[in-house]
C-alpha cells in the first residue's frame, strides 16, 4: 500500500520548468543532490534542488506572510521576476547615488554577477509556492546589496544565517550549519563572533524580507528602506582586490561629480 503510494505515477507539469516527482523520486533526488552539493558546491542546480525539496512547510508560511502585507499581496498578484529582461538596468544606472537601484547596479558590477544565473524552481509542486521560492532566489542578490555584502564564503554564510532567521528556509539553515567548515579558523571566528549575532538579532526583529516589492523601490533611498524594514548593516565585509579597486573608482567618480556640482 505504502509502496504503491510512493511509486504512484507522477502528475503533469503545472508550470514552466516543473518536474513532478513522486515520493520515492523526491527521496532519491534529495539524497543524491545533497551529496552532490557537498561534493561539488559549484553545482548551483544541485543547491537549488535541495532548496526546492526541503522547503516543504516553510513555503506556505512565507506565502501567508506575504498575504498578510499589502506589498506582499501585490507581489503574489503580479508575480514580478528579476532578470536582465525584466529589470531596466540602464535606467537603474542613471539613478542618483544612494538609491536602491543605483546601489544594485554598483553591487552587480563590483561582484561581477548577473541576475540571470539563478536556477529556476523545478521540484515544488504548487505553482504559487514555486513562485514564492523563485522570488526568494531572485531576491537573494538584493539582500546582498542591501547589506553591502560581497559574494565570498563568509559573506554568503552571514547572509544565510540572516535568511534562516528572517525567512526560516531549511536550506539556508543547512548552508549555515555546514558551510562554515570550509572557512579557515580566523574567518570562522569572525563569522561567529560578529556576523552571526548580527544575523540573528537583525533577522528575527525585522520585517520579513520576502514581502518587499523591490521593483517599486528602485528610486527610494537605501537608508530609508533599511529604517522601514527595521534592519541595520552588518560589520564591514572583506572585499577582494578587484572589488576594492572598483569601489575606489566609484568613490572618486562620486567625489568629482559632487565637486563639479559645487562649482558656481
Amino acid at each position: 500500500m505504502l509502496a504503491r503510494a510512493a511509486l504512484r505515477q507522477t502528475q503533469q507539469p503545472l508550470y514552466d520548468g516543473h518536474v513532478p516527482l513522486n515520493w520515492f523520486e523526491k527521496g532519491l533526488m534529495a539524497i543524491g543532490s545533497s551529496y552532490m552539493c557537498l561534493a561539488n558546491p559549484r553545482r548551483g542546480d544541485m543547491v537549488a534542488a535541495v532548496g526546492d525539496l526541503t522547503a516543504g512547510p516553510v513555503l506556505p508560511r512565507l506565502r501567508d506572510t506575504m498575504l498578510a502585507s499589502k506589498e506582499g499581496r501585490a507581489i503574489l498578484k503580479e508575480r514580478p521576476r528579476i532578470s536582465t529582461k525584466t529589470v531596466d538596468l540602464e535606467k537603474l544606472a542613471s539613478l542618483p547615488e544612494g538609491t536602491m537601484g543605483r546601489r544594485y547596479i554598483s553591487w552587480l558590477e563590483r561582484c561581477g554577477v548577473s541576475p540571470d544565473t539563478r536556477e529556476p524552481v523545478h521540484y515544488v509542486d504548487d505553482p504559487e509556492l514555486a513562485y514564492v521560492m523563485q522570488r526568494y532566489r531572485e531576491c537573494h542578490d538584493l539582500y546582498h546589496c542591501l547589506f553591502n555584502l560581497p559574494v565570498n564564503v563568509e559573506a554568503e554564510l552571514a547572509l544565510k544565517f540572516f535568511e534562516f532567521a528572517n525567512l526560516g528556509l531549511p536550506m539556508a539553515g543547512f548552508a549555515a550549519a555546514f558551510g562554515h567548515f570550509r572557512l579557515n579558523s580566523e574567518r570562522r571566528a569572525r563569522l561567529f563572533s560578529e556576523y552571526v549575532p548580527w544575523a540573528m538579532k537583525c533577522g528575527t526583529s525585522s520585517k520579513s524580507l520576502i514581502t518587499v516589492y523591490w521593483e517599486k523601490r528602485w528610486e527610494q533611498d537605501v537608508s530609508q528602506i533599511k529604517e522601514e524594514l527595521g534592519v541595520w548593516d552588518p560589520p564591514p565585509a572583506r572585499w577582494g582586490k578587484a572589488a576594492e579597486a572598483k569601489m575606489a573608482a566609484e568613490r572618486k567618480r562620486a567625489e568629482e561629480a559632487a565637486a563639479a556640482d559645487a562649482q558656481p
Partner: protein
Amino acid sequence: MNDAMSLGIHRLWKDDYVSSLKPGRKGPIRCIDLAGGTGDIALRILDHAREQYADRETTVDVVDINAEMLKEGYRRFKKTMYHNTPQVSFIESNAQALPEETFPTNTYDLYTIAFGIRNCTSVPDVLKEAYRVLKPGGTFACLEFSKVTNPLFNMVYDQYSFSVIPIMGSILAGDRDSYQYLVESIRKFPSQPEFAEMIKDAGFSSGGMHEGKGGAWRDLWGGIASIHTGVKL
C-alpha cells in the same frame, strides 16, 4: 554514466555479444562497427580474435556520425597494442548513407552495431546499407535495448527506468532531459519480432520468428537488451 545506469552490466552484455559472434574463428575477417565511436565493440572483437585464435590480421573499421565519439575511441585505442596498426581505423560517416567510395559493396564479413540503431532516424536505411556493404555469407549482428517479456519484471524495469535514470542523469551529468529522452527512446524502439521482421525485409536471412536457439534473436536479462542476427546469402 553507462556504468552508473546499468550498474556495470552493459559491459557483460557487450562481452556476451562479441564472444557469441566468435570473430576470427574461421580465419581473419574484415569487420565494420557502426555507432561504435568509443571503440567498446571494436576492442572486444580484436581482443577475442587475438586471444582465442592468435589472429592479428582481423580488422575493424569503427564508423560513427559523431567526430567527438571517434576522437574518444582513438584516444582509448592509443592505450592498446592496436594503435597505429592496420587492425583499426576510425571513419566519420552516417550509418544510413555510407559513401560507396569509402565503403564499397560486398566488403565486410561482420557488421556490428551496439546500442546505436535506436538513435538512427531511419532504421530500414541502416539495414539497407548494412546489407550492401556485407559480403555474401557475411553476418549482421545488432545489440540493442528491447522489450522485457515478463510482465512483473517489466514493471520493476519501467519503475527503475522512469524514476531512477533521469534522476541519475540530473545528479551525475547535470542533464535530466537527455536521460528522460533515453528511456523514452528505448520504449519507442520496435519489439523483438518487429525488428526481426525489418531485418528480414532488408534481405537478410535469419532464424525462426522466436527467441533463443535457432531464432532470429536472443534476449539478455529478460529482454532488457537483445541480440538480433542475420546473414546475407
